[in-house]
């Protein structure tokens, strides 16, 4: 018993090693960018960033608020990745979820809340799911690589948003400004705690994470997805339907992102605008998922961290001469260092030989992602 506890502790520490090293290395390299492009010292810049993100209850409240969409887009990337699909389209799925949510939100102003709100959320989920379904179908039917199709769909989503806020759902009251009408109260997500900005979306995000965990590790369907993701040959050998698994994972992936987009509009932004997606939600989600090793807990923690970065960056830009875009650099570096984590490998040698010899590359990539 004691032994197993100590193994658990060492495992825990080992799992934290790579993410922490990646973050430290990214901040260090990011400081070079700060030095090169501003008159602020990196220490001052990072201090104001940290204080802005975690300095007090108000700041933490804002960080939580910013973390919610990242958790959803991270789940989107992670869900697809578990089935072996690289979903670079969370950006577009998020936008379409927001669009569908907005359409349902502004179209039925007379519905009671208990009907209107769930309908809006479902519309958001379905919008994203549909947008996730497209690349999945193109992949299984025509062999079109999801890497490119998902990205192309991001651009298409952007144009669709532009079309809708300039046309069909443009707010007639606000003259010619390209934005939707405000979401009515019946379709809005309220605040979780009075006096704080964080809203019920946080609960929904955590429920989504819980669903992600239960589905993948406790159900037959989730087991199928993971087998197909780790070894599709074994999947078809065991009689699993690979194509259907891929489609299922992308429906969930798109749905998660879509739900996140919908929530962002109905809880925070209040209406859909051209500038609703100025923050790169989808790609930040990839960084969150990678840093969290596609694990439920990891995604929540990494989501909070990136929410903090996002939040603190604005503070940093306001207080110092460093540009908030430095955060984008740090985020990119986190992706590079997490994906390239083997460069930080300690020479423990544990199972190294068997693993490099016995495990095909696909599986090796998943090594760090085991529970």
């Amino acid at each position, binding site marked *: 018993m004691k032994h197993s506890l100590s193994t658990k502790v060492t495992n825990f520490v080992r799992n934290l090693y790579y993410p922490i090293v990646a973050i430290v290395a990214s901040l260090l390299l990011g400081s070079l960018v700060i030095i090169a492009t501003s008159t602020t010292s990196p220490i001052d810049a990072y201090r104001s960033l940290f204080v802005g993100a975690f300095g007090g209850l108000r700041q933490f409240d804002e960080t939580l608020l910013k973390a919610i969409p990242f958790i959803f887009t991270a789940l989107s990337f992670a869900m697809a990745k578990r089935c072996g699909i690289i979903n670079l389209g969370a950006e577009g799925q998020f936008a379409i979820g927001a669009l569908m949510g907005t359409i349902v939100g502004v179209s039925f102003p007379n519905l009671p809340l208990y009907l209107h709100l769930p309908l809006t959320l479902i519309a958001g989920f379905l919008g994203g799911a549909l947008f996730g379904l497209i690349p999945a179908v193109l992949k299984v039917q025509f062999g079109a690589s999801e890497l490119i199709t998902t990205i192309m769909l991001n651009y298409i989503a952007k144009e669709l948003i532009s079309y809708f806020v300039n046309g069909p759902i443009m707010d007639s009251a606000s003259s010619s400004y390209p934005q939707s009408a405000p979401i009515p109260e019946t379709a809005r997500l309220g605040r979780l705690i009075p006096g704080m900005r964080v809203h019920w979306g946080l609960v929904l995000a955590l429920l989504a994470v819980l669903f992600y965990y239960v589905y993948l590790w406790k*159900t037959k369907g989730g087991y199928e997805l993971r087998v197909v993701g780790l070894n599709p040959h*074994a999947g078809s050998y065991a009689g699993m339907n690979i194509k259907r698994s891929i489609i299922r994972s992308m429906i969930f992936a798109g749905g998660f992102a879509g739900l996140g987009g919908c929530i962002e509009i109905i809880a925070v932004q209040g209406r859909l605008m051209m500038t609703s997606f100025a923050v790169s939600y989808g790609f930040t989600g990839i960084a969150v998922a990678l840093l969290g090793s596609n694990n439920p807990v990891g995604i929540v923690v990494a989501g909070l961290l990136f929410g903090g970065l996002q939040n603190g960056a604005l503070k940093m830009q306001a207080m110092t001469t460093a540009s908030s875009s430095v955060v984008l650099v740090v985020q990119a570096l986190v992706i590079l260092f997490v994906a390239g984590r083997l460069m930080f490998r300690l020479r423990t040698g544990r199972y190294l030989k068997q693993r490099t010899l016995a495990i095909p590359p696909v599986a090796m990539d998943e090594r760090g992602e085991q529970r």
Partner: protein
Amino acid sequence: MSEMNQEVSVNEVKEDRVAGKEILRMVNVSKHFAQVVANKDVNLTVVEGEVHALLGENGAGKSTLMNVLYGLYAPSAGEVYYKGEKVEIHSPGQAINLGIGMVHQHFMLIPALSAIENVVLGYEGNGTVLDLKAAAKTFSDMSKQYGMAIDPWMRVEQLSVGQQQRLEILKALYRDAELLILDEPTAVLTPQEVENLFDIIRQLTKEGKTIIFISHKLNEIMTICDRCTVLRNGRVAAEGLPVKDIKNANQLAELMVGQTVNLKTDKSVAKPGEVVLQVKNVSALNDRKLQALNDVSFEIRAGEILGVAGVDGNGQSELVKVLTGLIPASEGQVRISGVDCINKSPKQILEHGVSHIPEDRQKMGMIAAMNLRENICLMEYDRMPYSGKGGLLRWSWIDEHSRELCSKYQVRTPGVQELAGNLSGGNQQKLVVGRELDREPKLLIAVHPSRGLDIGATKYIQSRIVEERDRGAAVLLVSTELDEVMDLSDRIIVLYEGEIMGTIEQKDADRNALGLLMAGIKNNEAQAG
């Protein structure tokens, strides 16, 4: 020179070789991978112009030693002398420059390129702009000289396995190799092609080349080699033994395994029951849309083992894939226990009590990055008692069941949470075999069940397969190891280019007859039996 004289001179040369000039000496070479010791203090001395056998079981460290010599692995300790000079070989390029060539067990050719492109690939004498025509001429001259004609402009994917092997040899000769390492060269050849290879080897030694011949097949070593070094568990069990001093194959086997071994698997007479698998006029295409199976028909009854012999790539994979629903058949009928199973989904076929030990356990049979229990529920995860209501998996039951299964089938593991990829090859195969046999199949399809395993694991798995037969399962055994097919099967069919060349009862099976059929030569005598 008359035939008589030639024979005499060969014998003289053979005498000389043993006493001849040393070309290679490896001294106390060790190689570790992490904690695993692949080679320990290995000594090997090879004499110019000889055929030197490197004998050992799977996993004895033969290939590792040769990969060290060829510069693919860096040795952990030890020294290598080539032509009397101490050398440190860090890369294959260096080995090639010294005059060492290697034909790997899995050919190092690029199927999408032409033969001549493969030959000149990486050759240091190439100009910036390739002159393939000139190279093809040199190549053709050389291939004629050694009697291994190959069209230089053919794409490698169009060449037969035997031709690919000859291309590999020529590739090494093109680089002026003097010492040629052949790693398990006969594994993919028919007995007749093996004879052909031996002729080539004799020709090469006559030209003064030296050969290191890696094998675990005793008969071949007795036939072609001059001296023999035996490896066991990474250590030398016998060094430079002259083959003419060896009395019989059993003596070599003992050196290789370290104990007296019974090479045969015990097996009682089959008591066939009703027909379980009925295959009628089945044809199918492979993934390159070429005809892979042509009008194949056979039956297997409960309680009998049908062996499928043949050289790799003659339709065995496609046959198994059609039977398990992984690829469609273009024509024909398959019935399992009387139920029509042609072109049904793998899931539907599995429902009929079919178990399948796949040809490549790493690629197909298991998920290396998942733990043992997740691998054990692979085939039955979607039914009771593995999963219950609402599609939830019953992990506590699966855990318990996995532990039982591991102990029953001798899977050595720290626990069921261990990643399958961390097990040794033998334990991985026991895991797959255990999982499949545990389902008590009516039809067991076992493909290369002992490939890459040591003798102990091989014997264990073979006896389990025979037990399944005795329990009343119909067994389809596909193997390229002729001995395995001959030992285990009650009847044997031979596949050649997707067609059944003949059916032979076990009692009538002998290597020669099977070999002819495997080479596509229908021999009436062989069939008559």
